[in-house]
């Protein structure tokens, strides 16, 4: 079946024919095949997110050159950033598969709690990390089961789970936090949370996490299936993909990411609070979309979401650093979100 509407390649070239275009067509090398163009096209959303981040940095830099040329501002952001990215990246998978997960803040709280309890009881923090991971993945499967097998709307079911899990934490702890003063002496702390040359080590771990997840998203069977299921679940099912399994696994993955976030959050202040994770709900979600993932499923970007998380995290520090009062923070959140979405609107074409 030819997929060639006309056999005359020149008639398909753009109206404005320059010598180069004619040569390209004559050589049978369409723009599609140029590696640079292909790279740009494949990474348009992520590059868009990068442009937003750079633009924002420029504005802050012009606003207050002395503050924003000092490393301290960036370090402040870098310390908290990995925690956000650990949940934002798995959220890209969930959104791509066509669902949403609003239960991650409570999962961060729960898994951090498990970690704190284990360490408080005198066990090694590595064991605490393991316990947190198991808890996170388990909770992810529970949430996923409600959505995938009990057929509840993910928006509402995960919101309900978020309230319920947070409520459980509050009932059990009665609002009391857990301090772990000995945590900085542990090997785990040195590996995961210390600072070397002014850079938090957690940044190194988050770079690895983002790189591996990006590979899984773009170059792994699971990533392909996440895309296809989010794009057209009926087609995926007809081609023998276990649609429910893929959906369930994305929720489990969010639980896993949330457990890492929960533990890394405790590492920052050697303390777990019953509210841990709560403040990540809206910035976390915003990061996914500021990063260039489409809200309707089927397409997205992992690296873009990490950049989006940086942008969103930087706003708060930046607004205060520029000398504005904290009252401006929310306004700038909103502004950046709306502007990014407008930008991506033009970037993302929705094929049906």
């Amino acid at each position, binding site marked *: *079946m*030819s*997929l*060639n*509407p006309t*056999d005359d*390649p020149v008639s*398909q070239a753009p109206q404005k024919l320059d010598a180069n275009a004619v040569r390209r*067509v004559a050589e*049978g*090398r*369409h723009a*599609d*095949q140029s590696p640079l163009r*292909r790279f740009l096209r*494949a990474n348009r959303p992520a590059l868009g997110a990068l442009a937003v981040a750079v633009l924002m940095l420029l504005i802050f830099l012009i606003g207050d050159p002395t503050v924003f040329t000092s490393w301290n501002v960036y370090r402040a952001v870098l310390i908290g950033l990995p925690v956000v990215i650990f949940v934002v990246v798995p959220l890209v998978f969930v959104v791509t598969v066509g669902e949403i997960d609003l239960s991650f803040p409570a999962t961060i709280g729960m898994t951090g709690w498990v970690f704190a309890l284990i360490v408080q009881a005198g066990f090694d923090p590595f064991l605490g990390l393991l316990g947190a991971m198991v808890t996170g993945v388990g909770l992810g499967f529970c949430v996923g089961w409600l959505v995938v097998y009990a057929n509840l709307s993910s928006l509402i079911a995960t919101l309900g789970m978020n309230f319920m899990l947070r409520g459980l934490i509050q009932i059990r702890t009665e609002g009391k936090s857990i301090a772990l003063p000995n945590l900085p002496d542990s090997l785990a702390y040195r590996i995961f949370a210390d600072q070397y040359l002014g850079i938090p080590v957690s940044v190194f771990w988050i770079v690895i996490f983002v790189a591996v997840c990006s*590979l899984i998203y773009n*170059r*792994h*069977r*699971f990533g*392909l*299936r996440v*895309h*296809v299921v989010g*794009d*057209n679940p*009926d*087609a*995926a*099912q*007809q*081609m*023998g*993909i*276990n649609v429910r399994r893929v959906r369930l696994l994305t929720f489990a993955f969010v639980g896993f990411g949330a457990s890492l976030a929960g533990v890394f959050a405790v590492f920052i202040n050697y303390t777990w609070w019953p509210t841990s994770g709560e403040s990540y709900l809206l910035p976390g979600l915003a990061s996914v979309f500021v990063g260039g993932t489409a809200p309707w499923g*089927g*397409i997205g970007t992992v690296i873009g979401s990490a950049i989006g998380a940086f942008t969103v995290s930087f706003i708060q520090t930046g607004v205060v650093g520029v000398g504005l009062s904290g009252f401006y923070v929310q306004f700038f959140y909103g502004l950046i979100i709306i502007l990014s979405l407008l930008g991506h609107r033009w970037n993302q*074409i*929705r*094929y*049906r």
Partner: protein
Amino acid sequence: MTDRIIELRDIRKSYGQVYALGGVDLHVDQGEVVGLVGDNGAGKSTLIKILAGAVRPTSGEILVRGRPVHGWDAAQSRAAGIETVFQDRALAVQQSITWNIFMGREITGPFGFLRAGKQREEASRLMREIGFTSKVFGPDSIVGQLSGGERQGVAIARAIYNRSDLIILDEPTTALSLTETAKVFHFVEQARAAGRSILFIGHNIHHVYDISDRFVVLDRGRVASQITKAELGSADALVRFMEELAHPSPKTEKAGKA
């Protein structure tokens, strides 16, 4: 006896109160082209979706190469060498041509990572094989940018990749130009020559007559007739038979009662 690829026995399918299929027997042997015809809503697509494992029958038995199968699903069907071009094409339109061709049957290396280079190569080869000569589209092109006929090409490319034993084509020529239609027929001929089987659904009786060896006429969820080309004699005989089904003349109605 020739090899029987698949056999359905007394397959029923109901959607709530609606009976889409009310007890259908169907089989496809190695190397034959079976034409499945019937009115709109007769249950043709439902039947082939059951064959393809995309829909579960309410009741009935499925035998693959003589053996009854249980929990028949799309993955099993593809593993058994059955590929289907569905009426709605089953494409993920925001993804590349390559990903559409390989979805559900990815070429993977260590740890389940895709062998992206190999997949792209195979995709380009398939596209050339089915006459996708255009330079405008490459294996990375997004399916949503293709025309209806071109999307159809992707669905067919996917079905022929596996060198499967049975290819099911659900109205493959609707929305195709004459030359494209001719290519589909050429493809069916090639597949038959290679000893593969085809189950072909179409509304153009003359087309179906030309390429099929045997016909199954479906009427309101039941098999009204199974007849070979030799028994039928001409396309017009099939057309008359189907017209008769749609608007029974009083004479035959009486004959039927008697």
